[in-house]
């Protein structure tokens, strides 16, 4: 049986030759992402903005009357609601954010939800409420705080771990790659105004984990090659390490993607945002391990001296065997 090889043998792509233009592009993308986050803002779901969300099925309608619903809910005076199809054509989710002045009032979200639910069930007797979520301003504020702490702590803890396991340059490189991934994911959410909820924080943490997975595999190989080829110029060595691990990188990204993509298309609607974020993160994370994490080592001055070379047991045995064979 001939086996599939996603990356042909002896692939040798000069990734690092393009490191400067790619770095410039990546830094521009990071800047653009933050620009988008700061100007356009994230479309916070009720987890972070407070408010209410109702999922409703119109049992006797072929299609949910979205436009009418919008007018009906808007008429209640809580601004324009976000109404989205949710699964079948007669299922919608209706989201209203908490008005800014109601932030301090713990019962406000609950009250809005009650009004919206009763207005809809009165206007459409065939409606079935499938799910209700309300989050008050105080709780959503805590969620925002928690999200920032979780992301910050994860990035910091992981960088420290890499620093301990490798060298400080690798820690900085890993942190920068993570910053790149998180920034681009946030930028994408700002650009497409996808709902930013607690689940997305979970997605970003998963992205951090998996992107780092890639970075570590590449770094581990760089460390190994640095010990082996102490005289090789660094850009060449990095290219070699990246190419050596390329088959694995592509294969792992492929298995992750084939597992996730069915979930994106056939999975529960409520998971769409989370899965979309992770899918995007797999691309961004793979790219960042090659183009962000590796080249930064050149600029941070990693060299063959960074690791005291040690001969592996296998290499030693083979050398001894060669020496014995060479002896007459």
């Amino acid at each position, binding site marked *: *049986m001939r*086996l*599939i090889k996603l990356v042909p*043998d002896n692939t040798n792509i000069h990734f690092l030759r393009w490191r400067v233009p790619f770095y410039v592009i990546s830094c521009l993308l990071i800047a653009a992402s933050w620009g988008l986050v700061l100007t356009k803002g994230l479309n916070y779901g009720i987890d972070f903005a407070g408010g209410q969300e109702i*999922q409703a099925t119109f049992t006797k309608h072929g299609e949910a009357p979205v436009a009418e619903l919008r007018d009906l809910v808007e008429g209640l005076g809580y601004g324009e609601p976000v109404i989205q199809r949710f*699964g079948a054509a007669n299922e919608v989710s209706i989201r209203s954010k908490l008005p800014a002045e109601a932030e301090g009032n713990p019962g406000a979200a*609950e009250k809005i939800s009650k009004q919206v639910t009763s207005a809809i069930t009165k206007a459409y007797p065939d409606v079935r*409420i*499938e*799910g*209700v*979520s*309300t*989050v*008050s301003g*105080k*709780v959503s504020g805590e969620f925002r705080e*928690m*999200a920032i*702490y*979780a992301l910050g*702590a*994860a990035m910091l803890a*992981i960088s420290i*771990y*890499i620093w301990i*396991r490798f060298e400080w340059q690798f820690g900085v490189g890993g942190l920068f790659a993570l910053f790149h991934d998180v920034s681009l994911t946030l930028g994408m959410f700002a650009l497409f105004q996808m709902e930013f909820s*607690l*689940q997305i*924080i*979970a997605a970003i*943490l*998963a992205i951090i*984990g*998996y992107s*780092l*997975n890639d970075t*570590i*595999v590449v770094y*581990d190989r760089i460390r190994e090659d640095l010990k082996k080829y102490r005289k090789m110029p660094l850009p060449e060595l990095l290219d070699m390490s990246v190419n050596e691990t390329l*088959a*694995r990188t592509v*294969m*792992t990204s492929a*298995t*992750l993607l*084939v*597992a*996730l993509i*069915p*979930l994106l*298309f*056939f*999975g*529960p609607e*409520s*998971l769409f945002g*989370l*899965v979309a974020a992770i899918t995007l993160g797999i691309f961004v994370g793979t790219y960042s391990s090659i183009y962000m994490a590796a080249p930064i080592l050149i600029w941070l001055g990693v060299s063959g001296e960074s690791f005291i070379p040690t001969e592996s047991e*296998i290499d030693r045995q083979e050398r001894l065997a060669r020496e014995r064979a060479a002896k007459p």
Partner: protein
Amino acid sequence: MLDFPIWKKVWFWGIALVCAALALPSLFSVAGLPWPSALPHPQVNLGLDLAGGSHILLEADDGQVAQQRIENMEESVRGRFKAADPAIAIGDISRTNGRLSFMLKDKTQVDAARDELVNLTNGAGLTGQRDWDIRVEDGNRFILTPTQEGLDQAVSDAMDSAVEVVRKRIDALGTREPTIIRQGANRIVVQVPGLDNPDSLKKLIGQTAKLEFKLVDDNAAPNDVAQGIAPPGDEIVPYAEGSEVGGVKALAVKRLGGIKGDQLTNAKQGFEQQTNRPVVTITFNQQGGAKFAELTQQNVNKRFAIILDGKVLSAPAINEPILGGSAQISGSFTVESATQLAIALRSGALPVDLTVVEERTVGPDLGADSIRKGLIAMGIGSLLVVLLMIGSYGRFGIYATLALVINVLMILGIMAQIGTTLTLPGIAGFVLTIGAAVDANVLIYERIREERKRGRRVITAVENGYKEASRAIYDANITNFIAGVLLFAFGSGPVRGFAVVLIIGLFTSVFTGVAMTRMWVAGWLRRKRPADLNI
């Protein structure tokens, strides 16, 4: 490499099979098959977002607890000073700025007053601090300030009894298996599986049910009352919605001298005889009944207001002393609201108002739909991963597949055994784990390919593959573990379910993907001694 002692094999298979067997009861129940009840039957708990149900987070108002404490303190001080011998007279009482202050009429009683006050305070916390701070200004002005420790203690006590009251009320509704736990300093989480319309639950919990009987001051000028100006010694209490009589929206009642309706033995919904309107009938305990009898005896032909949670329900006239120890509360009730009030009164008043600050309710259909779609997606995803692995690594891919199957069963089994909850994001965690678990195998197999390319012998190549790849595998899993633990620590509810699956998956995938495949590969190499590897 080829040597795999028998005890190690038994050990590996033992762990794998035990963990996987724990998953069987859950799988049987998903497939709708009966599981023999004689066997242990750990089940994976489904989160409310999958099973359907209601999650409600309640928050208590700490400010109210503080206010209440100051009011109670004032009452205790008055009572104690009146009973002291000789009685201590005070005036100019104020309860502003979160503290209680008053002046002694007689400066020489300062020491006696201080002794009385010290007896009213208690130790709070572990630091030896008292719950009130007593200070004397200008020789005769006492200022009592609650200490932070005392306040924390009071809030904590109030929350403990609030949890009890909430539990009693929910039990009275007959809902099955509610979970009611305190969270943080001033919150309570209520989770009720299978409840898809929590309105009556929320109404019941939202009612503090503090019942008071206070005398109506009929001498107050109606204009003043309407404007909210209370005559000295009175307070203005608004009517509850729908209970107003003849356009009067509020009543002036005497601040002191009323009684509280917390000394009850029973409360039930009934009907008023003449009008057939829903009412709540309450029965006092002996002490409460005696107080109520005294109040009605002394105030025949006057009106008293029945006040629930600061709103007047009704203000009937006392035609004759009520000595039987039971009373009827009328108001603009429906049968449902009267029943709710009866339940609330039976379970006792909440020591503090509770507000719903977060609610997540999922109907059973939506949850079942999520499970179905999640399973379908998981099936397709797993199939694709398996095809890709076998297509890429042949025999080694089959080992990876076997490892993956055991891995999924082990995760389920461990989740069932330790009683964690599978949530909707947890399903995403599962799928992600399926995609990522084979990463260890990919790393190893790619390394074996490389070693073979370099011309190493089969056994050396396999050995090197496992050895050289393991560093990266462990580093990668530890960093993922850090991310997972932080997600668990900071996350809430469903998101935690995601972290749980990821964390368990890390351990099981290293065990199955590295240790078990190594055992199989070693066994095969020893049996066949292949000269070449198709990898």
